């Protein structure tokens, strides 16, 4: 479990790095277009890939750190033991959802991979390059949701600081 926590933290940092790289690529693209009249064929497409992969691989870290946006105004009013129950149910719901998306996402990926489908854009990358992010991301989220279900049941998850809410 400690190993898994290390993995998700590392993935969260990789996601942060990917978004930063997207910023660099697009800045380069605009500079190349205006100053050298030589727009790139890769900047827009690759930065889009950073958004897909970055968002999906960082999901599980955010679930563990309680950094997903949730409505807690009502639950907060309940007694602690009831909260443990609701939180456990909530985590089971996340586990079921992520398992199904991972499963069907895998189907989409595998189909494209088998048929060698490509994007048909300038770079003409295989479509599975982006589609693989769904089973990977939601697979990790499924494992994390199982861990969090256990932690919700024991009450450990409730003790965590929900972190700064964000928008």
């Amino acid at each position, binding site marked *: 479990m400690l190993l898994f926590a290390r993995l998700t933290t590392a993935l969260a940092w990789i996601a942060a790095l990917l*978004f930063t790289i997207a910023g660099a690529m697009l800045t380069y693209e*605009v500079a190349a277009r205006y100053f050298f009249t030589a727009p790139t064929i890769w900047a827009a497409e690759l930065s889009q890939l950073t958004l897909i992969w970055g968002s999906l691989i960082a*999901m599980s870290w955010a679930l563990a750190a309680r950094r*997903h946006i949730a409505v807690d105004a009502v639950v907060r009013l309940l007694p602690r033991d009831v909260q443990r129950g609701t939180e456990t149910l909530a985590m089971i719901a996340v586990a079921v959802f992520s398992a199904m998306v991972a499963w069907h996402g895998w189907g989409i990926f595998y189909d494209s991979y088998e048929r060698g489908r490509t994007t048909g854009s300038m770079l003409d990358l295989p479509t599975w390059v982006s589609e693989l992010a769904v089973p990977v991301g939601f697979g990790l989220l499924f494992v994390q949701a199982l861990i969090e279900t256990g932690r919700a049941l024991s009450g450990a998850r409730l003790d965590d600081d929900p972190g700064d809410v964000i*928008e």
Partner: protein
Amino acid sequence: MTALLILVALFALLLLRVPVAFALGGLGLALLLLGGFSPLMAPQAILSTLDGFILLAVPLFLLMSNVLLKGGVGRDLFAAVHAWVGHWPGGLAVATIVSCGVFAAISGSSVATAATIGTVAIPEMISRGYDKRFVYGLLAAGGTLGILIPPSIPMIVYGFVTEQSVIALFLAGIGPGLALVGLFIVYSMVYARFFGGYTPEPPASWAERRTSSLRALPSLALAVVIIGVIYSGAATPTEAAAIGFAAALVITGLMLRTLTWQGFKEAMFESMVTTVAILLIVAGAKVFGKAITLYRIPQDISVFIGQAIDTPLAFILVVSVVLLFMGLVFEALSMVLIMTPVLLPAAMALGLDPIWFGIYMVVMVECALITPPVGLNLYVIQSVARASLGDVSRGVLPFLALMLLTVALLYVWPDLALTIPFKL
């Protein structure tokens, strides 16, 4: 009937504290399965959301404003504005609002705006004898300008889900944003004149004005450049955000030399966390939106509203009340994502402009940000000022009234929003 059941299920999941993204996505997927539609639509909707080029602007605008925040740009901005208007009646309050407005033009988030300006302005105003509730209210409300004055993350998201032009939305936010700044300034000056209690200040010296303005100039220029670039069509909003991020690094890292390596790493990580939280909600909402469209829910609601309500005025009144109540419990972005697909068809059937409706939603969401018990900006000010939630909540009431006044103004005079994008 189905619509009601779906709504009850959604609220049950949300109130159970299932994260908003997965509540929307999960319910959407369940509806697809129940209705005999292909569940493959769920992963496809998630992929197509994250494949949206306009949404790439979200992490980049966040990186830009977080870098500026870590680089202490808020302090410089506030000092510069303060040097010019500090001696006016209620000068510090005016300086605070103007600083919020300027920071809003380089940030797409109201929380970032409230936190950045609040950190410097609150201690300063309290030490000058301003009533603390007034101060908290001013900052919580001033911070909400972050999402009305472009860039704005809720506008990017609204544009994405409704397939409206984000550029038009950005430009339409300028007029109401300035109107709100104006109302806040007038209120602050009137308040200071009659309820006073603060220590007036002498005007700053010209030397002070020059040095502080020079320091704030790069950030101010950045705000102008971002909007200029988008307005002229020289770059897409996403590209403008990337340039803004690069420029923010140059300003804080090379020119002011206030950005540390540690600060940069924090800015990177925080931007990632916010991006992931926001984009997953958008993706979840896309799955949900697909499902309810297949069930013809928006169409049914639109027909229902059409039968019950036949004037735009009645529609806006009813919707405003609903949104105000939702805003008591819901976080801003989720509100936009849940309500827009349901309400926009009805709004358009009544002849309301979709861009206008987007700006209206943003102002209503600003209200949600400062209505207790759940209002993100209340929490921000609470933690920045180490104040009680009660004091902050009472402080925002007059400002809430001013925001609703802006909604009314927007209704009777739609051109307040629509002139800049469409008539200039």
